C-alpha cells in the first residue's frame, strides 16, 4: 500500500479508528520520548519496565468492572510506585529487588483478575500487545489531557530533576526533597505508560520510553537537544510503524517497536562508523 492509500484510509469515515489510533500513538510517543530522557539518563530502565507491568492489574480491574482503563491503570501504577518507594527505604534490600517483587506480583494479580472476565484470551492479548481498534473517543481527550499534564509537570520540575540526577547527596545537602521528586518522576512515568498501553501494549511500551531517548543520546551531548530529538524520533516511528502495520497487516505495537529499533541500530551504526572514519 502506498502512503497515498494510507492517507486515503485515514480520511475514510468508515475507518475512523485508524486516525484515532494514529493520534494516540503519536501523542504517546511524544510524551514517552520526553520522559524517557530522564529514565535513560538515570539508568531507570528497570523501573520503567516495572511500572509498565504494574499498571496491568488496574487495567484488568477496570476492564472487568467496565470502568475507565486509563484511570484504573493510573491507580495501580501509582500504588505500586509508592509501595516500591516505601519498601526501598529498608536498608537490607536494594531497590531493584523490591521492584522485582512488586512488579511481578502486580502483573500476576492482573492475569488472575482478567481470567475471570468473559472473552479472556482476546482481551489479554489486546492488553499485552496493543490494539488499534475499539478506542473510545473519550480516550483521545484523556490521553491529550494527561499528556499535557505530564509535560507541564516535567517542565516545572526540570531543574530539580536534573539536579538530583547529577548527584543525589549534594542535592539533599541543598535541601532538595529527593524522595518526593523520585516519587513524582515514578508517577509521571506511570502516567506516560498508561496512556500508551492502549495502542502499543503492556509489554512493548518500555520501548517507547527507552529506545527513542537512547537513540537521541547517541546523537547529542546536549540535554535540550536530546529532549527534542527523542520525542521526534518516537513520533516518526509511531507514524511509520502504523503505516507499515496497516499496509501489511502486522500487529501495530510490535511494528512500531521494530521501526524504533531500526532507527536505533541505524544511528548506532552511523556513530560507530563515523567515529572510526
Amino acid at each position, binding site marked *: 500500500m502506498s502512503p497515498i492509500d494510507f492517507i486515503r484510509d485515514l480520511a475514510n469515515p468508515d475507518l475512523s479508528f485508524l486516525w484515532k489510533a494514529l493520534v494516540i500513538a503519536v501523542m504517546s510517543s511524544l510524551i514517552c520520548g520526553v520522559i524517557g530522557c530522564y529514565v535513560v*539518563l*538515570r539508568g531507570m530502565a528497570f523501573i520503567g519496565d516495572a511500572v509498565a507491568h504494574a499498571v496491568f492489574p488496574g487495567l484488568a480491574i477496570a476492564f472487568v468492572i467496565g470502568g475507565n482503563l486509563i484511570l484504573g491503570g493510573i491507580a495501580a501504577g501509582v500504588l505500586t510506585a509508592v509501595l516500591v518507594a516505601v519498601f526501598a527505604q529498608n*536498608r537490607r534490600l536494594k531497590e531493584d529487588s523490591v521492584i522485582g517483587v512488586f512488579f511481578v506480583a502486580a502483573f500476576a494479580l492482573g492475569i488472575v483478575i482478567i481470567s475471570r472476565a468473559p472473552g479472556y484470551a482476546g482481551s489479554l492479548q489486546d492488553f499485552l500487545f496493543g490494539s488499534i481498534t475499539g478506542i473510545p473517543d473519550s480516550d483521545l481527550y484523556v490521553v491529550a489531557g494527561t499528556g499535557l499534564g505530564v509535560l507541564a509537570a516535567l517542565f*516545572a*520540575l526540570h*531543574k*530539580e530533576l*536534573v*539536579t538530583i*540526577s*547529577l*548527584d543525589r*547527596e*549534594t*542535592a*539533599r*545537602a*541543598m*535541601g*532538595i526533597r529527593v524522595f518526593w521528586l523520585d516519587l513524582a518522576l515514578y508517577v509521571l512515568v506511570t502516567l506516560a505508560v498508561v496512556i500508551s498501553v492502549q495502542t502499543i501494549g503492556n509489554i512493548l511500551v518500555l520501548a517507547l520510553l527507552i529506545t527513542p531517548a537512547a537513540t537521541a*543520546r547517541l546523537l*547529542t*551531548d*546536549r*540535554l535540550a537537544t*536530546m529532549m527534542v530529538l527523542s520525542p521526534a524520533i518516537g513520533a516518526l516511528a509511531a507514524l511509520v510503524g502504523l503505516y507499515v502495520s496497516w499496509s501489511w497487516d502486522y500487529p501495530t505495537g510490535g511494528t512500531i517497536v521494530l521501526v524504533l529499533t531500526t532507527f536505533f541500530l541505524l544511528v548506532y551504526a552511523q556513530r560507530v562508523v563515523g567515529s572510526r572514519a
Partner: protein
Amino acid sequence: MIAFEDIAVQLGGRIVLEDATFTVHAGELVGLIGPNGAGKTTLLRTALGLLKPVRGRVEVAGLIGYVPQRHEFAWDFPISVEDVVMTGRTGRLGLLRRPRTTDWEAVDEALERVRMTDLRTRPVGQLSGGQRQRVLVARALALRPAALLLDEPFTGLDVPTQELLSELFLSLAREERAVLMTTHDLAGAMYGCDRLALLNRSVVAVGTPEELAERDELWMRTFGISPHSPLLRVLKAAA
C-alpha cells in the same frame, strides 16, 4: 566559621562518632585526617544537616558549599559545565523559578574563580579529572558560601593536579571562607593545610602541622600504627 560542639552521631543504633569539638575559622584551610571508618564523612554529613547528631550541635556562619567525591557525580550526563554550576543554585532558587541575572552572575564568578570560564560550554563528560574537580568546586561556589566542605578532592588525581588544586583551596580559604577538607594524602595535608584535625571515632587532636608532627603518640592512636612506622618520618619531613 564552622563550629562542631561536642558532636555525637549514631548510625544503625551504634555511636560512630563522639566528643567531636573543633572549629574551622574563616580564612583557614583545615584538613580532616583519619583512617577509613574514622567518621570523616559522617562529620561532613552532620555539618550538612544530612545526619542529626544525638548530642551536640554544628554552628555555621552563612551558607555551606559541599564538594562531594568525584565518583558521586553522574559524569555521563549530557550537560555543559556552566549548566552544572547553575545546579548549585537549584535549592536556593526554589520550585518553578528560572535563573535570573544575579544567578548567572554567581555562576560566572564561580567559573572565573576556578579558571573554567574557557570551558564553560564543554560537556562535562569530556573533562579531565582535575577539571571535573574544579567544576564541583565551582558548583559549590555558585551559592557564594561562607564555608566549603571538600570530600577527598585529591583521590585519583596526579601530583601536579593535586598541587594546583591545593593552591586553589588555600586561596579560597584566604578569601574569608572556612574550608574543611578530608584527605588520605597525609604528606600533602601536612604541607598544604593551616591546621589538621585527627579523627578516629572522636577528635584525637587539632593543631598546626608543626605542632602535630612532633607528637608521634597522636598519630599512633589515630591510625593504629607502631612507633617504627615510616609514616612518622614522612610526616616530620612534610611539616
